[in-house]
């Protein structure tokens, strides 16, 4: 099964791809890009490309890949099965971004926000297709953000390719819709088969839709919040929902490089300027350099 490697270790993320069909190496192809799992507070985000020769686009549409958002999970699985069966002329590739990777990017010192991560992932997948020998002629991309800037960026990156970026592109272009199906199926399977790397016994998987406003998801988060360690790696710690719960129910943790507290320190007492005892000599630099201090008590 094409996604069996992903199902064995969803937490590991990574790239998964079909073999490049032989016609795609000879004939000009349309390549669609879409994503799944941008909004949920748990699970990976998946970027997918799907491509086929331009003269096979009508056949692709006939597989029923249009309007993927309206499909049930079972229907999506079925249509992914059809795409796999058409593997002699349809190819696909996925990049699975694990939730801890998303959180780390968003929270690291030099912030790498979700939009930048998304654009870079899409760009890398397109490049992967080119490097794998796919004769990409057109690139069609679904976007939630401003389309013009993203389109200009991709055109600059891939001169010589026709690039079209549109909101709701999955409803307009069958190859984007096919990519959407690949991404959604992959994400659904990753969440369903999630391997908790934490040794938590048998954690319940009743996480609802995974969206922050889903009461079932919120309840799951509350049940699975460990006060010192927070959540399992399935959860995106950088999401506002997760951060609020950690603030309210987690143990406070302070880091040396965090911003100073909002309240300024109290001004020193006037009496402190009239000290009776002479100022204490600082410790020898041998001890200062090594952060070694005497103790008055344990």
């Amino acid at each position: 099964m094409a996604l069996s490697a992903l199902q064995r270790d969803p937490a590991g993320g990574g790239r998964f791809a079909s073999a490049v069909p032989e016609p795609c190496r000879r004939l000009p192809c349309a390549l669609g890009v879409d994503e799944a799992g941008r909004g949920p507070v748990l699970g990976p985000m998946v970027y997918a490309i799907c491509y086929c020769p331009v003269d096979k686009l009508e056949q692709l549409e006939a597989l029923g890949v249009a309007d993927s958002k309206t499909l049930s999970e079972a229907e999506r699985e079925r249509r992914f099965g059809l795409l796999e069966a058409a593997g002699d002329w349809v190819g696909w590739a996925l990049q699975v971004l694990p939730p801890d990777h998303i959180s780390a990017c968003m929270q690291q010192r030099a912030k790498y926000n979700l939009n930048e991560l998304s654009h870079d992932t899409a760009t890398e997948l397109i490049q992967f297709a080119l490097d794998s020998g796919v004769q990409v002629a057109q690139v069609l991309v679904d976007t939630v953000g401003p389309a013009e800037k993203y389109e200009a960026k991709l055109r600059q990156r891939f001169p010589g390719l026709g690039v079209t970026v549109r909101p709701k592109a999955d409803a307009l272009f069958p190859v984007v819709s096919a990519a959407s199906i690949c991404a959604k199926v992959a994400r659904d399977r990753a969440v369903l088969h999630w391997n908790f790397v934490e040794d938590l016994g048998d954690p319940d998987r009743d996480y609802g839709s995974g969206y922050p406003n889903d009461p079932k998801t919120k309840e799951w988060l509350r049940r699975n919040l460990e006060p010192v360690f927070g959540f399992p790696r399935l959860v995106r710690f950088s999401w506002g929902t997760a951060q609020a719960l950690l603030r309210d129910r987690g143990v406070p943790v302070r880091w040396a490089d965090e911003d100073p507290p909002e309240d300024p320190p109290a001004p020193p007492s006037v009496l402190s300027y009239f000290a009776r005892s002479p100022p204490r000599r600082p410790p020898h630099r041998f001890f200062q350099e090594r952060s070694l201090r005497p103790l008055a008590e344990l």
Partner: protein
Amino acid sequence: PAQWVLIAPEAALDPPKKPDSEPLFTKLRNPSTGEATLYLFNSGAQQLFEVKAFHEECRSWFIGQTVQQDGRLLFVTPMDPLFLILYYLIKADKEQQGKFQPLDQVVLDSEYPSCPLLLKCADVKQYIQHVTEEKEIGSQKFHKYSQEKTLKWLKKKVNQTVKALKSNNISVGERVLASTLINSKQITDAQEDYVRYAHGLISEYIPEDLSKELLKY
């Protein structure tokens, strides 16, 4: 906290040979600052150890399956008890105008009841001659602080410290040099730098007036 993380030599933690003589953490008068400072006597108070904490801001411990807010790492290292005894010898010398006295009447401190244990440490009664003049009347010994002998003894301590600094490649120059930077030029710290640094370290263990005398010496 109910537990601490501590690195100590085995001698500090040897089991007691007699009941009621376990290792003892106790406060004694710091000879340099005069303030209460934590020390350790091993079983039977044979040896004295100073206790220092490696203490950086924003540190905690995982110890087994617990978390401990207090992120200090304690170090216990052997210490020459004469450094602590010196304070009382100097004080007695000032107060009693240079009278010879028995040690157990000198090394007393109402604020630090463990103070007499300093005299139980191995070989103290023998090595006390490094810092005092001694008289024997009958079977009893009497001691009087000797600055001259003390400075000679401290000079040996400084020289030993200089050797240890060199053999451990401790940078003692006035320049600030991060230990993680490797300097391509061969820069040798001057002997004076070593002596000043060692004097500074020894001064952490003696009263300030004595430190000034030692610097001149």
